[in-house]
């Protein structure tokens, strides 16, 4: 566990020591603020504080677009570049389990995203001062769900980073995979015929958006949906560890 904590701390520090993380934070802040204000200042319906807040925390496509691209950008270098520079050799010959190395990295990237999503709390405070108190419970569950979803996509990003030797390729492939994972279930649902129905049933199992909507967005902390995210994250991390191990065998 000590090794895991050491890796986690190092990776988090590494993220903040690189300019990319700060740029991404800035982008997130502007992007989120834009969509928040867009809903809030909708002239036809009047200010809907909770709707605006849920939009920036998983309630709408803008958030998912951001998550699906940010997670790969954060994780792309974590294994591919370290494998090239020999740092992976350093980590994998330290008395730390392979799993701890991968999980530490995933936790660092997830922490960064959770921090980025916490900008929603700022918006909440703002509207509170302006006299329209938000539903803090719903806001918090939405933030928790956003962080859990971030964990899943960071784990997928690490799988890609372990598979591909250049960071850019790793990021590109991870974004493609993320989009497929996110967009396939609703696409398949619109298919007709028995094959389409079967496929839709299978893809239901990986429907991130639906699980998110069904629970966190509504402000309900349902253990089934928490487990959905944790289980898929664990599966992706397991896969990433296996890929790292297979790299040892290949040399």
């Amino acid at each position, binding site marked *: 566990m000590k090794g895991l904590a050491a890796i986690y701390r190092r990776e988090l520090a590494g993220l903040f*020591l690189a300019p990319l993380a700060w740029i991404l934070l800035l982008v997130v802040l502007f992007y989120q603020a834009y969509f928040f204000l867009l809903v809030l200042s909708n002239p036809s319906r009047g200010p809907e504080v909770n709707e605006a807040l849920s939009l920036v925390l998983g309630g709408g496509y803008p958030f998912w677009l951001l998550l699906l691209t940010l997670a790969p950008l954060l994780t792309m270098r974590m294994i591919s570049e370290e494998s090239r*520079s*020999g740092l992976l050799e350093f980590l*994998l010959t330290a008395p730390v389990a392979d799993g701890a190395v991968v999980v530490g990295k995933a936790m660092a990237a997830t922490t960064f995203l959770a921090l980025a999503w916490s900008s929603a709390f700022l918006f909440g405070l703002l509207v509170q001062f302006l006299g329209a108190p938000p539903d803090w419970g719903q806001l918090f569950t939405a933030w928790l769900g956003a962080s859990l979803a971030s964990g899943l996509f960071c784990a997928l990003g690490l799988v890609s980073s372990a598979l591909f030797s250049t960071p850019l390729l790793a990021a590109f492939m991870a974004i493609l995979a993320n989009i497929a994972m996110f967009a396939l279930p609703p696409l398949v649902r619109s298919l007709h015929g028995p094959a389409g129905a079967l496929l839709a049933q299978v893809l239901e199992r990986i429907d991130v958006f639906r699980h998110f909507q069904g629970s966190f967005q509504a402000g309900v902390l349902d253990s089934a949906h928490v487990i959905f995210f944790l289980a898929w994250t664990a599966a992706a991390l397991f896969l990433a560890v296996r890929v790292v191990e297979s790299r040892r065998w290949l040399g």
Partner: protein
Amino acid sequence: MIDVQHLSRRFGPHLAVDDISFRLERGEVVGFLGPNGAGKTTTMRMLTGFLPPSGGTVRVDGFDVLKDSLAVRARIGYLPESVPLYRELRVQEMLWFQGRLRGLSRAEARRRTGVVLERVGLAERARSLIGCLSKGQRQRVGLAVALLPEPEVLVLDEPTSGLDPLQRLEVRALIRELSKERTVLLSSHILPEIEATCPRVIILQRGHIAADGTQTELVARLGGGGFVRLELARPVELERARTDLAALSGVHSVEAQLLADGNAACEVRGEGDLRGALGALAHARGWTVRELSWQRPTLEKLFTHIAFELEHEHPAGSVRAAPPSAEGAA
């Protein structure tokens, strides 16, 4: 301390390390010598648990490198060839990170950081960014990182590459000092490096152990590695001199040739240092001696000999050096 049995490693069809076995006792300093691509780095990676072997076993302090990987890793300080360091960290931060990875307490990690930086001569660069250091300085930071956990075994892959001659001397002195308390395995393709630091040498060639022994043993086995060089001033009757020299007791072979300037150069091989006998002979024959010197056999000659032999006579097989024939090789 390290017990390697029938270790092999293949990369696809390529056999990088082919059935090598050796043992290192506690406190031994052993040099891995071999041309590029001989399997030095691959072997070291298998010892440190980075690469799993294709066949054979590695035991460090009784622990199997595959089954008790973490126990083995905790006992080894490893400096990889590429000297991996986080360039965006400061020197001391890198060392603290290594301390945390090894489960040291904060105070202990800080104390040891001071000690190892002093040892590698970088105490005043503790707060420098690693990315801003020169290659030689980074090499020494890498050494400090390997030393920090105070491991029982040190595995150093080309520890002196990229250093200037002065730093090289310092690192050699450091390794000699470390060897008093630890088992050290280091690799190099630079012969004087190994000659200066390692009493025992393992020569690798195409994934095989071509020779294994102390420097004196190996050089003795070479047979004819050392010889007496005798240069005679003109005019010289070359054939006469050659037969006279060959008739001397203890002489095995004589190579004599006229140099461009008319003087004659002879290489006399026999049982040890024959300078005394040659000098007396020259005196008796009335030759004018320009040079009479003992050419010490070196590891370099042994190495080129073995490498050459393998390349030309046994392209794929392992060759042990011939049994001792020259007694007095020193």
